[in-house]
């Protein structure tokens, strides 16, 4: 910095702190000596820069290692998965792509101005998956299944949706979800979760009991085709008048429900769900009815671990037609982030904190697996994401 301090001063300025310029070349040591005003100015500059840099680091989360960020959330998922399965999603890793379309019957227009609800067809890219983070888990070992959709609207807008075969979330906040993951993590020495940690968590989170009780009676079916998929989170449908409707939705299968025969699991392939899907689609398309339920005043909007009463008004707004299955390895769903916050005009997120967290956590998972795909020189998926 000594060069800075040597710089001549502009005589046109009249600050009392600044001496006139040194003109005598015989006394360089005098020039090198910084003036008190310059030291103060330099300190001020340093302070301003440091304050801006520190604010940047704080906003990025670098100064607060305890803060739950998207990156730390995905790290936790990876730990619970027992490792990284490169190129796969960090949750619901094992899946199969499909293409089809959504046939809107026009009934949804009363609730939302989204063009997908006007009577007519919208092409869809989708994915069925099982709930495990390890993509090699046998299908029979995973009670939770999911359906993800990307509706490709005619004007170029996109609606993405990730739905679950469980009727509501196990936990209502991302922080509790994270702690739940920590409590369930396998101890490397025993290979099993710590029972004491699990009990402590259950004791402080009564919603866990509600979930396990519901799951005990929840039918696990023998096919993706006859599973019901729940939107779980609440969204706001905005109608043409600008009125907001708090809604949840389900995809209700038209295929008859047949319970999974748990005694027969040993005889089933580890991939029986995708094999069954392929066989069914050889016979013809599969249909699911999109049923939209509107909340009544007092229903929980921002807590997806609490179901709504069964008697809420429900509207059938259209039918999803699943036409063709494509293996995930090079299918059109592979490189899609089914972030449920990618919404068209007419649909908005609610204040549900789990829904908010899904947005950034899905994106972080997407970034990581596409980086892994790139490192492995995986070419673009066959059909791409755009129709």
């Amino acid at each position, binding site marked *: 910095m000594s060069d800075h301090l040597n710089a001549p001063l502009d005589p*046109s*300025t009249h600050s009392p702190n600044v001496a006139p310029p040194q003109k005598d070349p015989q006394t360089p040591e005098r020039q090198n000596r910084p003036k008190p005003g310059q030291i103060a*100015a330099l300190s001020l500059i340093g302070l301003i820069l440091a304050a801006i840099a520190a604010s940047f680091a704080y906003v990025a989360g670098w100064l607060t290692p305890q803060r739950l960020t998207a990156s730390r959330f995905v790290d936790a998922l990876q730990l619970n998965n027992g490792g990284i399965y490169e190129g796969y999603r960090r949750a619901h890793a094992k899946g199969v792509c499909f293409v089809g379309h959504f046939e809107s019957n026009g009934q949804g227009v009363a609730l939302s101005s989204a*063009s997908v609800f006007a009577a007519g067809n919208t092409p869809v890219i989708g994915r069925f998956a099982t709930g495990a983070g390890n993509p090699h888990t046998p299908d029979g070992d995973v009670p939770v299944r999911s359906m993800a959709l990307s509706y490709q609207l005619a004007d170029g807008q996109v609606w993405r949706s990730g739905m679950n075969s469980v009727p509501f979330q196990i936990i209502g906040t991302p922080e509790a979800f994270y702690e739940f993951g920590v409590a369930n993590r396998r101890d490397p020495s025993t290979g099993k979760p710590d029972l004491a940690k699990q009990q402590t968590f259950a004791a402080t989170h009564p919603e866990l009991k509600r979930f396990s009780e519901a799951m005990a009676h929840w039918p696990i079916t023998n096919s993706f085709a006859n599973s019901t998929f729940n939107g779980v989170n609440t969204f706001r449908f905005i109608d043409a008048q600008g009125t907001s409707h708090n809604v949840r939705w389900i995809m209700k299968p038209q295929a008859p429900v047949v319970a999974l025969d748990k005694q027969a699991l040993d005889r089933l392939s580890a991939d029986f769900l995708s094999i069954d899907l392929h066989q069914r689609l050889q016979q013809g398309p599969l249909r699911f009815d999109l049923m939209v339920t509107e909340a009544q005043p007092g229903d929980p909007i921002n807590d997806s671990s609490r179901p709504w009463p069964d008697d809420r008004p429900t509207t059938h707004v259209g039918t999803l037609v699943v036409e063709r299955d494509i293996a995930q390895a090079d299918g059109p769903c592979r490189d899609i982030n089914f972030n449920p916050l990618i919404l068209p005009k007419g649909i908005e997120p609610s204040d549900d904190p789990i829904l908010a967290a899904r947005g950034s956590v899905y994106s972080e998972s997407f970034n990581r697996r596409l980086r892994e*795909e*790139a490192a492995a020189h995986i070419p*673009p998926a066959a059909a791409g994401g755009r129709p």
Partner: protein
Amino acid sequence: MSAPAEHYTAFTRLLHWLMAAMILAMLFIGVGMVASISSAHEVLIAVHRPLGIAILLLVLIRLANRLAHRAPPLPSDLPLWQRLMAKASQVLLYALMLAMPLIGWSMLSAGNYPIVMFGAVHLPAIAPASPALYAFLRQAHTYLAFVLFAVFLLHLAGALFHGLIRRDGVLASMVHGPGRKEDKH
């Protein structure tokens, strides 16, 4: 040194300070939104996209304006290395202002994302869907944002050095027009 310093035009100064605020906001929004798991994530990302496109449009106007109007010369007694630093950092700032929105736009295209501006208004894809391209652009967007932030800090340090220590009128030429009292001596 006693001649009144040449100042940037009012339009240039407006563009400069408007874009300074927008770019600094973008850097903080960007680094904050990717970390956040609250509803702030979605709000910030909804601002980040159209703000980035606005910066892209403004930088095109600004480049044309810069080519049409010569910048005021630096003080003749400024050491060569400082002169070079000033030039290099300005070239880098222009390059990054132009590159960052274009990388963001092509990155979303390569990642199969819709490029939503507001409501139903969105932009077309400008790159093919490709995991390799997405991964490269996504990382470039982050690392170049850090470079942009560093160059911004350097630029600010230079401006303050001129304004507080050298007091040579370089900062003043971007802060206000000619004709203020201190320039008339």
